[in-house]
């Protein structure tokens, strides 16, 4: 009992130690002190998760039952490491350059990034691995039980099942803590790798210790042991050629295809050159592991009572000989084997499940898109964690449901056969450009159906999942379809039978369907990148990361476009592609659309580079890109601020330019105005000066001359005064400073006054004015004085400029809609079209007039009418000069 307590304590301490190792490695990696983490030896040791509890404990049992056949399990990987290292190298290179996260990722990525294929591979991998996890849990539980049996003590926990539950929960926790510490896009887990490397040393050391104890402690040396081997059944065991070949092939295939092996070998690979060390060191490790298997089996068979389980000789032999410390070490070895396998398998499977099943479902479930925050990383992490829990829970359930019995013992090879189905598709994918998605689908489907039908289902025993009748006679009595004797070929070992048929038909169908069909453009593209990976990845030492898949694109797009826009874009594209869920396949079309959308934010070149980096497998990690995207977002903010500022400046500049143009125009107008005013002032002043000098200097002037010249001076002085008056009037009117003196009066009276004023003096008889008084009965409410000023001006113009022999002016009043009009039409020659355009300008004098005015009259009229809310304009086509004064009707009421 005490020993058992010590065992539990040691176990706990060991687990805590592993946590610390993993934690330390993570810290070191984060601090950049990862030099020793990058050692090829760590890589080599991490590969040792190949030897699980099944090999740690089971190899001895295997040897006890089937002699040297257990060696096939070691020979397969050895052959792969030594003979196929160039295949592994290509896988590693592809993994890095394409940022592969799992075997499902690699296969789906190679075959046109088909998520369906990824889901298929994931499901099959889970099916193939779950029993294996169950096997590890069982081995831990049973080894506990062995200890408690040995001391005839009750376990501290109620049952082996709850014991296994504890172990499962602990492993899940460990994996979650160190497998999903952060969403490392290159999917490296330094802590986990370091922990399993330590465990690899523990299990090797434990097995060697037991072996040394058995050979020299019990067996009495090498020679003695060899004799005992010769004498035992194992020595007389005969090799079955077909089974050996099949098993070597199987373990070799599994070594490449097992998700956990792919994880440590390809995904966790730090440096391609590590493979070179591992290619001889790992076979060496396996050799040492297998060295003492037969001696332990032989001694165990001799030592232990008949019927005892040879699978646990490694544990029971030290216990039986009272070597508790060694037994404990051995237990730790087995514990290490089991835990490392479960941890890595859970990690690998969770990546696949999360990336290819959970995330797509989650993204489609959160359909609206509005609820999704900008950063999906926490969702990815959560999904990974849940997946890890689910994978381990599945293993535990399988263990419970299978009853933990001997059915598990054979599950190792069945699992191997299952995952070996990936091999043709995997190798075809990296060596044959003609391989197509349809071919991969068909081959995998055929292989797995045969595997399930011929090996998995019958393995549960006749009557459980397959009826004895089916096994004996085939489905519906079709004898050639008997699960263990296809096409009537009987007498084969069921395992060999299943391997042969499943692999052969899998490969055949894969090739034939690939040859018949045509690869899609993206498949061709990916195929070329995979097959010619050495040409495409010129820099194998560069950064690496996970596969550029839609998820990565989504994360990046959200950073750049914003969560909502990115989701909408992806959703729309997924719909267009007819893909279920929210993540479109990264087809060239979609990438082009995405690139265009991103280009709107970051510019075409950057967008192209970013997508190229993620999808095309260039040498920058997605993390770097996300950092770039963050920076870009900041820069965009700055740049939009700058843009706003520069827009503002442009606006100001435009306003300044307009103001400047206006000032220039005003300045030109002012110059021209001054020049005209100067002219208008100088002209009368010239006369005044000339005649005043004449009056002053001439003594002999007649009185008539004196009067005449004085009158000229007088008239010109008045002209000057009038000019100044007009200028001031115009200035006031133009500045809008005029105060209107609004009165109400009769239009007729205003006209009377205007005529009286205008015709005063010399020209009274000259102009004949005709009016229609009946029309003039209109009451006005306006500035009557100003209106009168306009009328005076117009009448005065007619008086001055009408060139008819008998000048006549017609004044008529009318109404149009909304306006009162007063027309002044004389019978002269009128004003030419050219001059009509300028008569209202200041100082515009047209024709050959020797006018006494300064040319401001009409300009003043126009200003006055504008102030009164009306207008004055020239009426063309009336024969003589015709002006129309328009007043708003609101001011005018027809008199009763």
């Amino acid at each position: 009992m005490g020993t058992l307590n010590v065992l539990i304590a040691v176990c706990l301490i060991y687990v805590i130690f592993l946590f610390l190792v993993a934690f330390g490695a993570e810290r070191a990696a984060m601090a950049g002190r990862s030099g020793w983490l990058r050692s090829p030896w760590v890589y080599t040791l991490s590969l040792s998760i190949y030897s699980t509890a099944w090999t740690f404990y089971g190899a001895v049992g295997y040897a006890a039952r089937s002699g040297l056949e257990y060696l096939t399990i070691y020979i397969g990987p050895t052959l792969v490491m030594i003979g196929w290292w160039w295949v592994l190298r290509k896988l590693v290179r592809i993994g890095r350059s394409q940022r592969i996260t799992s075997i499902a990722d690699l296969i789906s990525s190679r075959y046109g990034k088909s998520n369906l294929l990824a889901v298929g591979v994931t499901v099959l991998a889970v099916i193939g691995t779950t029993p294996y996890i169950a096997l590890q849990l069982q081995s831990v539980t049973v080894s506990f039980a062995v200890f408690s049996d040995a001391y005839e003590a009750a376990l501290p926990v109620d049952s082996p099942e709850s014991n296994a539950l504890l172990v499962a929960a602990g492993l899940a926790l460990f994996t979650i803590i160190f497998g999903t510490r952060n969403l490392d896009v290159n999917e490296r887990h330094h802590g986990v790798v370091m922990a399993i490397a330590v465990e690899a040393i523990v299990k090797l050391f434990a097995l060697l210790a037991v072996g040394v104890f058995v050979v020299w402690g019990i067996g009495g040396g090498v020679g003695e042991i060899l004799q005992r081997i010769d004498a035992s059944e194992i020595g007389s065991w005969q090799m079955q050629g077909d089974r050996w070949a099949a098993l070597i092939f199987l373990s070799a295939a599994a070594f490449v295809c097992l998700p956990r092996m792919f994880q440590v070998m390809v995904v966790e690979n730090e440096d391609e050159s590590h493979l070179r060390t591992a290619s001889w060191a790992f076979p060496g490790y396996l050799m040492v592991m297998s060295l003492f298997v037969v001696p332990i089996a032989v001694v165990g068979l001799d030592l232990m009572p008949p019927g005892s389980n040879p699978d646990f000789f490694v544990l029971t032999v030290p216990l039986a000989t009272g070597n508790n410390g060694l037994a404990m070490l051995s237990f730790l070895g087995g514990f290490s084997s089991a835990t490392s396998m479960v941890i890595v398998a859970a990690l690998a499977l969770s990546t696949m499940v999360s990336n290819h099943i959970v995330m797509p479902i989650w993204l489609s479930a959160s359909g609206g898109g509005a609820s999704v925050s900008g950063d999906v990383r926490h969702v990815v992490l959560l999904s990974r964690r849940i997946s890890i829990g689910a994978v381990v829970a599945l293993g535990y359930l399988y263990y419970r449901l299978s009853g933990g019995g001997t059915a598990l013992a054979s599950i190792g090879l069945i699992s191997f056969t299952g995952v070996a189905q990936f091999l043709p598709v995997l190798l075809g994918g990296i060596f044959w450009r003609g391989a197509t998605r349809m071919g991969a689908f068909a081959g995998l489907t055929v292989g797995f159906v045969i595997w399930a039908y011929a090996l998995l289902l019958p393995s549960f025993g006749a009557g459980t999942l397959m009826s004895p009748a089916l096994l004996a006679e085939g489905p519906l009595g079709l004898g050639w379809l008997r699960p263990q004797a296809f096409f009537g070929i009987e007498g084969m070992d069921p395992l060999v039978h299943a391997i042969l048929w499943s692999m052969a038909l899998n490969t055949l169908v894969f090739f034939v369907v690939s040859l018949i069909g045509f690869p899609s453009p993206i498949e061709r593209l990916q195929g070329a990148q995979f097959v010619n990976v050495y040409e495409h990845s010129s820099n194998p030492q560069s950064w690496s990361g996970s596969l550029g898949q839609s998820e990565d694109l989504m994360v990046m797009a959200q950073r750049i476009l914003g969560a909502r826009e990115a989701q909408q874009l992806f959703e729309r594209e997924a719909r267009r592609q007819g893909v279920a869920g929210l993540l479109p396949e990264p087809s060239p079309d979609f990438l082009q659309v995405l690139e265009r959308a991103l280009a709107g934010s970051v510019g075409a070149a950057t967008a192209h580079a970013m997508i190229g980096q993620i999808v095309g497998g260039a040498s920058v990690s997605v993390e770097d890109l996300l950092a770039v995207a963050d920076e870009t977002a900041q820069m965009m903010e700055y740049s939009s601020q700058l843009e706003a500022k520069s827009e503002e400046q442009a606006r100001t500049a435009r306003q300044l330019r307009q103001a400047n143009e206006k000032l220039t125009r005003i300045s030109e107008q002012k110059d021209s105005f001054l020049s005209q005013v100067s002219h208008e002032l100088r002209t009368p002043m010239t006369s005044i000066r000339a005649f005043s000098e004449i009056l002053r200097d001439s003594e002999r002037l007649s009185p008539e001359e004196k009067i005449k010249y004085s009158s000229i001076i007088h008239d010109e002085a008045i002209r000057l005064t009038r000019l100044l008056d007009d200028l001031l009037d115009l200035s006031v009117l133009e500045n809008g400073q005029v105060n209107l003196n609004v009165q109400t009066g009769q239009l007729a009276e205003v006209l009377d006054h205007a005529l009286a004023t205008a015709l005063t003096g010399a020209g009274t008889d000259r102009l004949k004015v005709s009016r229609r008084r009946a029309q003039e009965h209109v009451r006005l409410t306006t500035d009557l004085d100003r209106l009168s000023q306009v009328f005076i001006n117009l009448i005065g113009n007619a008086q001055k400029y009408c060139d008819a022999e008998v000048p006549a002016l017609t004044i008529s009043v009318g109404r149009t809609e909304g306006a009162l009009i007063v027309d002044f039409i004389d019978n002269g020659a009128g004003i030419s079209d050219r001059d009509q355009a300028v008569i209202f300008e200041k100082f515009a004098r047209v024709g050959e007039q020797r006018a006494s005015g300064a040319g401001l009259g009409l300009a003043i009229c126009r200003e006055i009418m504008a102030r009164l809310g009306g207008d004055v304009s020239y009426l063309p086509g009336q024969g003589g000069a015709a002006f129309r004064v328009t007043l708003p009707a609101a001011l005018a009421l027809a008199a009763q």
Partner: protein
Amino acid sequence: MGKSVLLIEDEPNIIEAISFILSRDGWAVATHSNGHDAVDVVQARQPDLIILDVMLPGKSGYDILRELRDLAGTRDLPVLMLTARGQVKDREMAERAGVSRFMTKPFSNAEVLAAVRDLVPR
């Protein structure tokens, strides 16, 4: 009989003033008051001197002067130009057109008389 002066001016009072001044000094003064046919009148009358206003109805004094300078008979005819627009650019335009003497209104009678005497040696 003295030398003849043709006064081309449209302002009646100025015509009267200049005519008075020059007549009193013994010049034969003829007048014309628009720009249209001024060149023809000059050619017909063949005066010894022209006094030319700038702002004339029909044709500006500058144009008239340019035309006169293009004609063989009047190329060297003395022209005294009077203008109420006394800016620098007006003087420049007059000089480019080939004016003999340029004066700004208002002028003193003595100045005009001196200029006329100066331009036409008796």
